[in-house]
């Protein structure tokens, strides 16, 4: 090798590691610049704060939104851009919002009085004609909304909106809580064009969309002429991230102030940080067991009752959900006015065994329960999309084994499809939103009426069906509550389902955020009242 060759070799030997170090440092260099920028930012914010008291909040949601079309996305309402005629309050009771009052003039006619003095974010006045135009747009854009509202015609007269429905529709005010029924400025959409409008919709809320990057974030800024008093925060960043650990890290790094759906295993670490808090509130969802009454064995209410007694609700709430669940005494969150008033069914394997013996089972020599020479064995279907459900199935399996009942667990990808297409399952672990708009009608109709889409087990309880039909025709709120309570009572006697637990909504909050609490309804996330210290 020539001298130059040797020299080159040495150069390679020296430069090689140098290049490697350069690569490893590359991110460091970039990062240092960012660090400088990152450090500069708070200084800049502080400077601005002195001038205009600039207040910002960052919220991270666990589901992403690809569009802000208010009639096809809930995030627009959640982000405080649009509002509905009726809302539910923190006690999950219907309250006026853009409508100040409403009345049911006859079976088919509803009259809503639209709030005076409200302007859209483009300055246009909110009146009944604007609401009518918005509903027409909504029903054209979302077939679901059209089906839910059942509107035959509308008439606008000043601030009075008259709605004629296609059939008696007692739950109309509650259906109007649906974010898809948000009121938008159709005039603004005409000016902007649909595509631009769906990226920056114009509503009546306290915040307007400054920019929107689909599936990543919404930048919001305050609408100063908001009817209910301008927001205390100037700007909100509303981000989306589907990875629970990353969301938790974003809260811990103080990049985000409010983070939805924190994984329960990170709660302890978050609580150790004195600047952070974790809010855990029972939501409107319920995890439950669904019995397949098409199977002869499960047609006996004693058998269903036995499994109900085998469900250890306390252990599910405390051991499986680490305290972030509330044992359920019925389908509806206990806060709801029509929720079951009775205590939660206690775990009682002795009583369960007694019921099974009453139902004709006998105890075999090995302790296993038998009937007609066959051991009692059940197949329970579960799915992983909600990680607690397979664990609930395992808990039930182990508790049932103790009284001689064998349970086989089968995990499927899509429980909805499996439970409808196959008839051989016995029990399904399931989870539904039981009162999404603070009303019992949805769950009772969908999950417990024979034609409902969530009734894979073909449940048909005549007494219950009659009450639900009466509920569907009753608009008086007090009467509706009474009917829903009666329905719950029958459900708890007949046990078509065993309600296990109301999973909590776990939200991580930086303590600098004040006057804000997560609501069980998960609708009103960005408000004019929220503030920072």
């Amino acid at each position, binding site marked *: 090798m020539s001298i130059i060759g040797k020299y080159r070799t040495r150069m390679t030997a020296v430069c090689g590691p140098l290049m*490697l170090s350069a690569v490893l440092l590359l991110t460091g260099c970039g990062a240092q610049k960012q660090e400088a920028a990152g450090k500069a930012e708070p200084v800049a914010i502080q400077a601005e704060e002195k001038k205009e008291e600039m207040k910002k909040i960052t919220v991270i949601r666990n589901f992403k939104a690809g569009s802000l079309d208010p009639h096809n996305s809930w995030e627009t309402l959640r982000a405080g851009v649009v509002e509905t005629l009726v809302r539910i309050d923190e006690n999950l009771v219907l309250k006026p919002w853009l409508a100040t009052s409403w009345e049911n003039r006859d079976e088919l006619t509803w009259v809503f009085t639209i709030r005076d003095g409200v302007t859209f974010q483009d300055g246009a006045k909110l009146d009944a004609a604007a609401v009518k135009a918005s509903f027409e747009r909504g029903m054209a854009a979302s077939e679901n909304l059209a089906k839910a509202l059942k509107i035959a015609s509308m008439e606008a007269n000043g601030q009075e909106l008259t709605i004629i429905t296609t059939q008696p529709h007692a739950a109309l005010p509650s259906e109007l809580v649906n974010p898809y029924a948000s009121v938008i400025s159709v005039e603004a959409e005409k000016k902007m064009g649909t595509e631009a409008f769906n990226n920056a919709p114009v509503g009546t809320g306290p915040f307007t969309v400054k920019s929107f990057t689909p599936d990543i974030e919404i930048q919001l800024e305050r609408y100063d002429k908001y009817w209910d008093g301008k927001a205390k925060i100037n700007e909100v960043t509303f981000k989306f991230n589907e990875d629970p650990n990353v969301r938790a890290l974003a809260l811990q790094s103080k990049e985000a102030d409010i983070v939805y759906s924190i994984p329960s295993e990170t709660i302890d670490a978050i609580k150790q940080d004195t600047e952070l808090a974790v809010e855990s509130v029972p939501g409107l969802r319920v995890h439950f067991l669904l019995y397949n009454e098409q199977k002869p064995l499960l047609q006996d209410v004693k058998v269903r009752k036995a499994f109900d007694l085998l469900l250890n609700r306390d252990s599910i709430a405390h051991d499986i959900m680490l305290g972030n669940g509330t044992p359920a005494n019925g389908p509806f969150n206990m806060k709801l006015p029509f929720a079951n008033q009775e205590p939660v069914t206690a775990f009682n394997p002795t009583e369960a065994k007694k019921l099974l013996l009453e139902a004709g089972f006998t105890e075999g020599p090995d302790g296993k329960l038998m009937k007609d020479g066959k051991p009692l064995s059940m197949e329970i279907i579960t799915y992983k999309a909600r990680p607690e459900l397979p664990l609930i199935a395992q808990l039930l399996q182990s508790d049932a084994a103790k009284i001689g009942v064998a349970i086989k667990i089968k995990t499927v990808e899509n429980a909805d499809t499996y439970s409808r297409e196959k008839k051989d399952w016995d029990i399904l672990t399931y989870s539904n939103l039981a009162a999404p708009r603070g009303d019992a009608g949805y769950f009772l109709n969908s999950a417990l009426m024979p034609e409902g889409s969530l009734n894979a087990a073909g449940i048909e309880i005549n007494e219950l069906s009659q009450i639900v039909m009466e509920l569907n025709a009753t608009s008086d709120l007090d009467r509706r509550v009474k009917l829903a309570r009666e329905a719950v009572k029958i459900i708890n006697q007949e046990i078509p389902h065993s309600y296990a637990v109301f999973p909590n909504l776990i939200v991580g909050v930086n303590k600098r955020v004040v006057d804000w609490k997560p609501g069980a309804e998960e609708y009103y996330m960005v408000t004019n009242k929220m503030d920072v210290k």
Partner: protein
Amino acid sequence: MFQLVKARMGQLVLVLFLLSLMTFILMKMAPGDPVLIILGSDEMTVTQADEAALREELGFHLPILVQYAQWMTNLLQLDLGTSYIKGKPVLDELMDRLPTTIELTVGGLIVMILISLPLGFLAAKYPGRWPDHVSRFLALIGASIPSFWLGLLLIYLFAFKLQWLPTMGKGSIYHMILPSLTLGFAMAAVYARLLRAGLLDSLSQEYIRAARARGIAEWRVMLKHAFRAALIPVVTVFGISIGSLLAGTVVIETLFSLPGLGSMGVQAIFQRDYPIIQGYVLLIGVFVVFVNLLVDLSYGWLDPRIRQGKGDAS
């Protein structure tokens, strides 16, 4: 070369046809359909009659091949259909997602090149000595750490502990550093080892000895003579893995909130959004065929002994 391109175009049509047919049949045979999601049954009261009506409206009751023929007829008119769930044209949806995927892939490739080239060269230059051991060690780590874990570790270090970089989102070059590192590091491990093996192989060839004997500078021997030939296995593996690279970034997309093609595809599969699945598979198919065409064309440049359709290549 023109012949090769022409032949490949013919193959592309065939590949896409078979790919779309197979995907269509498989996804229709898989249990479930998007009807409940379209009707929003988890929040709206839906009856089984509503479901049946929508199934009929969408043509799900027709035989699979008839449904395929309908889809194909629209495709021939350059209409990929509309997403059932989002209501947006499939083409728009794909084009919205494509830039993020390309940014992420390019970022990952840059990191991969920056790590694997020096590591590969050093390992080949000093086989069995410490640079080789370091390279092997890093390759082992890169191949063993799953990307969701590496991504979380990087976020933990750079975003949470050091607070140098943002945890998620898009908008600046800084946002792309962590996702690119996560993607590039795992790839670099494999390519550094491939490059090392390729370099060692070509360095043992007669023509390298001849070049050295002619007194050509060592760096020139390495870069011009050995490196080009060593790139052939690297490029081949790259061609094979481009499909999984484009589609397989779903974990990284989820971690860093980057809406790319991977997460769109996975979501479409879970929701049974058939038009999106079909469009997605076609797009990835086109990419794979084109990248492999480029790979084949590059062989001729990397090693002039390789000629398409000219008989004995030795």
